[in-house]
């Protein structure tokens, strides 16, 4: 649609083709959500893209990208204590960051209502693991709704918002990557805009809000009681669905896996019955028992871990139900996204006679070169890695962090050999520096990550006098997730804001040794890094260059194309191949005749490669 913003605020009912992430925003509008917060992370950033399509002065709710998921959760929680329906959304591993705050929420009476939208990533499409966040629900007594498609994202959010407000209880809406990004036509209801109520309604009498000593048990008791109410509610609202094929075999499943299952069953004549759960925690006992009792054999088909299987088997044991229950067959059932092909494999292990072998090939042809993601043409990180790689010795240890610069671990740079999560590089580097006088330790970190989770480990390195060099890759934006602004960008999601200067912040912490270079100036960067790693202290090199993808996009928008390309002067070229073998910009191509040339489709004309050619054969 041309005008997504207009559509999201349309008063009348309508149908439109939307992504799950967009359907969610319409649900927020219709539900009267007042405060929404986030930290960018795939598969959820397009929720913010949809929000941004609504002009700020027409936006019926406040939105911010907070510095990290924990802060975002706290902002949403605080707003809800004043009576505003709030929502926080982030990616799977974002919940680890938010966890300290999140696990408390279900103990508290959140009068405005609060929905936590999770973008889990089975298949680890854009994450460092495929963790199953349903575990957090069990840990914190928080109900979880799992939609299967954009229409259900819209429906379930509205249900979650309504119930959350009614009970003052936090609810998780758990999306997965291909629910967030699936597109289909969704029917939206009318929007009756309510007058905004701004009076701050916080009252400690609605609490207790201090979970300490004697108040903890009653708070926990209430949280557990409310789980029972949630279970009943989901039944009354008829959210769970049962597909009755009059079969003695049954399958219990939820979310997108349900659609994969229907796909596989298309060519099965004797289709098992299906129970699709909408709320997967608390596990609906009555619904499960009824389904078990009416079948001889039930397969629990669930993506990632075996939470449902364990709960359902426990329920059956307690109720002395003798239905045969099967879940995961082997460890491979725990791994990967449950696409139609995967579901076929999983089901075949249980019912080989029922489910046919699929068409999918197990081994892709081996003569097709892999195409791993790359740093973009003109990326400042490439120029930095090229320079830094020349300074470091083979045995030195480099620690990576999350961001575009993580891609430095690949050929031809091989920089960044260990990766955990956001902001972890300095801490890991500190540990690697202990008892270590032989091998230099270098940690990489991006600027958005620096604000997100990087500061505590930097302060620790100072406090405990660790000996390593942190290279702060400052590109001025949160690049990997789609160029969201961060505290040093000089603007937030809504307006201009004072940029928090990275260098002064480091100086203010008392870091005596700070180096700085534009990464396009490789000679300068080499000098700075060489000096830094030879010092005996914790120091920082700020390796700066604005994100070129952002710059090149703007340039193409303004001028229609990139005004420059580099060329290789074939007369001067001595086939040393630094450009293609070591610098590795994707714009350089290998020709059949052994020459190297430049692909104009890719080259943005930045010229950061020119300095790398020993024969001075690259020019612009």
């Amino acid at each position, binding site marked *: 649609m041309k005008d997504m913003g207009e559509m999201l605020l349309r008063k009348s009912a309508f149908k439109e083709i939307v992504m799950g992430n967009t359907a969610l925003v319409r649900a927020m509008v219709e539900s009267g959500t007042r405060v929404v917060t986030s930290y960018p992370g795939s598969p959820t950033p397009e929720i913010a893209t949809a929000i941004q399509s609504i002009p700020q002065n027409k936006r019926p709710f406040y939105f911010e990208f907070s510095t990290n998921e924990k802060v975002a959760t706290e902002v949403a929680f605080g707003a809800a204590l004043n009576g505003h329906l709030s929502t926080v959304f982030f990616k799977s591993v974002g919940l680890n960051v938010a966890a300290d705050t999140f696990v408390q929420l279900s103990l508290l009476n959140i009068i405005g209502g609060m929905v936590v939208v999770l973008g889990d990533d089975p298949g680890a499409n854009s994450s460092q693991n495929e963790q199953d966040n349903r575990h957090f629900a069990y840990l914190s007594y928080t109900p979880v709704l799992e939609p299967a*498609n954009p229409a259900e994202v819209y429906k379930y959010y509205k249900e979650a918002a309504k119930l959350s407000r009614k009970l003052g209880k936090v609810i998780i809406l758990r999306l997965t990557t291909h629910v967030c990004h699936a597109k289909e036509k969704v029917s939206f209801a009318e929007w009756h805009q309510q007058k905004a109520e701004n009076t701050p309604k916080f009252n400690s009498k609605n609490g207790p809000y201090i979970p300490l000593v004697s108040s903890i048990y009653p708070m926990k008791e209430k949280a557990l009681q409310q789980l029972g109410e949630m279970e009943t509610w989901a039944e009354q609202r008829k959210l769970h669905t049962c597909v009755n094929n009059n079969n003695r075999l049954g399958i219990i499943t939820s979310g997108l896996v349900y659609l994969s299952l229907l796909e596989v069953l298309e060519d099965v004549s004797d289709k098992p019955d299906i129970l699709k759960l909408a709320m997967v925690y608390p596990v609906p006992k009555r619904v499960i028992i009824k389904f078990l009792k009416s079948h001889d054999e039930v397969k629990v088909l669930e993506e990632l871990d075996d939470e449902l299987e364990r709960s359902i088997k426990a329920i059956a044991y307690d109720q002395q139900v003798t239905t045969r229950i099967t879940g995961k067959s082997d460890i491979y059932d725990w791994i990967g996204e449950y696409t139609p092909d995967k579901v076929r494999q999983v089901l075949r292990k249980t019912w080989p006679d029922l489910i046919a072998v699929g068409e*999918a090939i197990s081994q892709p042809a081996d003569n097709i070169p892999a195409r791993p993601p790359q740093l973009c043409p003109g990326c400042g990180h490439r120029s930095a890695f090229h320079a830094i790689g020349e300074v470091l010795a083979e045995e030195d240890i480099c620690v990576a962090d999350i961001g*575009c610069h993580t891609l430095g671990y690949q050929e031809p740079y091989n920089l960044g050999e260990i990766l955990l999560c956001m902001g972890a590089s300095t801490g890991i580097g500190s540990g690697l520096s202990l008892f270590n006088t032989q091998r230099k330790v270098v940690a990489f970190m991006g600027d958005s990550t620096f604000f997100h989770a990087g500061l505590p480990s930097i302060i620790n390195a100072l406090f405990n006098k660790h000996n390593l060099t942190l290279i702060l890759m400052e590109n001025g934006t949160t690049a990997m997730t789609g160029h969201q602004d961060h505290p040093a960008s000089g603007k937030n999601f809504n307006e201009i804001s004072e940029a928090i200067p990275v260098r002064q912040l480091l100086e203010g912490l008392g870091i005596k040794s700070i180096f700085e270079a534009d990464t396009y100036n490789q000679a300068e960067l080499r000098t700075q890094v060489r000096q830094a790693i030879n010092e005996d202290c914790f120091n920082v090199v700020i390796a700066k260059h604005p994100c070129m993808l952002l710059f090149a996009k703007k340039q193409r928008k303004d001028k229609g194309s990139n005004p420059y390309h580099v060329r290789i002067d074939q007369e001067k070229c001595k086939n040393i191949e630094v450009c293609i073998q070591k610098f590795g910009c994707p714009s350089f191509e290998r020709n059949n005749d052994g020459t190297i040339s430049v692909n104009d489709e890719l080259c943005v004309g930045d010229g950061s490669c020119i300095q790398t050619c020993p024969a001075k054969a690259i020019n612009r």
Partner: protein
Amino acid sequence: MEPFNIYLCGVGGQGIGLLSEILLRGADHAGLQAKAVDTHGLAQRGGTVVSHLRLGDTVHSPMVPGRKADLVVALERHEAMRGADTALKDNGCLVYFNTVLQPLGVRLGIDKEVSENLLNKSCKARGITVYKVENEKLDDPRMQNIAILANINKNSLVPFVKKHHLILAMEDLMTGVMLEKNLMIFSIY
């Protein structure tokens, strides 16, 4: 109708999202039920990106099961080869833009570039019909997706979806100069 599966693939940055969205909306204008899903995130940085598009009343999952695509649309030659191998059914149809963005291994001299010859040979062995689209009239590589779209239309590669449906879809998604430019490319190819 029987499900009709389209699998689109290319390299991050080539504009596969727009092409997929035009086909999705075109199918909707033709009165077909349609579901789609795109790659977002990490792979968009120069990696392989794919988009699944499924048409028909008995389609459930937005993802095309392995080797069940009736049509593979590729914006690059290596991805054409990969897409045909993993997604396309035997005797299916491949339409691709004959440009090459060399994968890392080819640039490093470790892997061999996929040649037209190799692609044609492997397609022939599986009875795949190949439509090759080339670059002659395009000065802006970002229009390659529309050149492909024009070819899909010209050869009626998607059942029930006609030229006017695709134009309506383009009008849904673009305005002004961008729309004009794209419509022009669409009409000359």
